[in-house]
């Protein structure tokens, strides 16, 4: 019984750790998507509408 509880606790702990890490990786990927679309995407409509901000923030954009 005690062993089962221990196993369950360990499983839960590693689940929580993995979820934490997945959350961090997910956040970094989301950040990269936002950064790419606003700062780097070459499509004319994206470039023109973000133009002044890209210059002000020194993105290498054109």
């Amino acid at each position: 019984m005690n062993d089962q509880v221990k196993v369950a606790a360990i499983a839960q702990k590693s689940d929580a750790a993995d979820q934490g890490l997945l959350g961090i990786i997910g956040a970094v990927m989301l950040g990269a998507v936002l950064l790419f679309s606003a700062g780097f995407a070459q499509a004319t409509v994206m470039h023109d509408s973000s133009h002044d901000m890209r210059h002000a923030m020194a993105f290498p954009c054109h």
Partner: protein
Amino acid sequence: MLKHILTSAVFAGIVAGLFAAIINLWAVIPMVMEGELYESGERTHFAVDGSPQSDAGSPSILEDPARHIMPAAFSVVVFTGYAFFLVAAFALAERYGHKTTVRSGVIWGLCGFIAFQLAPAMGMPPQLPATPGPEVVPRQLWWAMTVIFTASALGLIAFGRGVLPIAVAVVLLFAPHIIGAPRLDTYFGFAAPELAAHFAGASLAATALTWTTLGLCCAWFWTKLKQD
């Protein structure tokens, strides 16, 4: 965990992005518009008589208020993206026992400024619209390499133990600049050098201010939303 990161980052990104939009409109965008006068040829430096002088003065941002809406929206998007990186870094640091406080958030923000703005500016300074440059893709790759190397180096300096992490950090800090950013072998700029220099300085100062604000806001929302 993801929800805590997302909510903190989105709130902080909106506040810092709007702050950036206001600072840029006040201190940086007028110079972008002035640079466009040289780009379009409306203003010429070294005019026909060979004289280097040209009129100084930026167009008013009120001339065409609508043009500033989309860049402001994009500045919220960019700073929300940066906020995701910062808050993810808070979460990663906390896994190793380094608690984030509002004060340490300011340091995180300044490190973000160093990694994302100051280090890339050494090879590719902020440039006015009237500045031709080399191919865009190699410049973007150099920018990404410089940001990743510099951020990793700062992480090693902050959290590493012993001499080895510091040694690796020094290599990472210098490598992009020894490799060197893509450059043209000719100067093509049309705009007055005073304007270009003022623009580069103002752009860096504005991003320093905004990154500090972003670090502060990220840490504030991160600690606040955790308690609730």
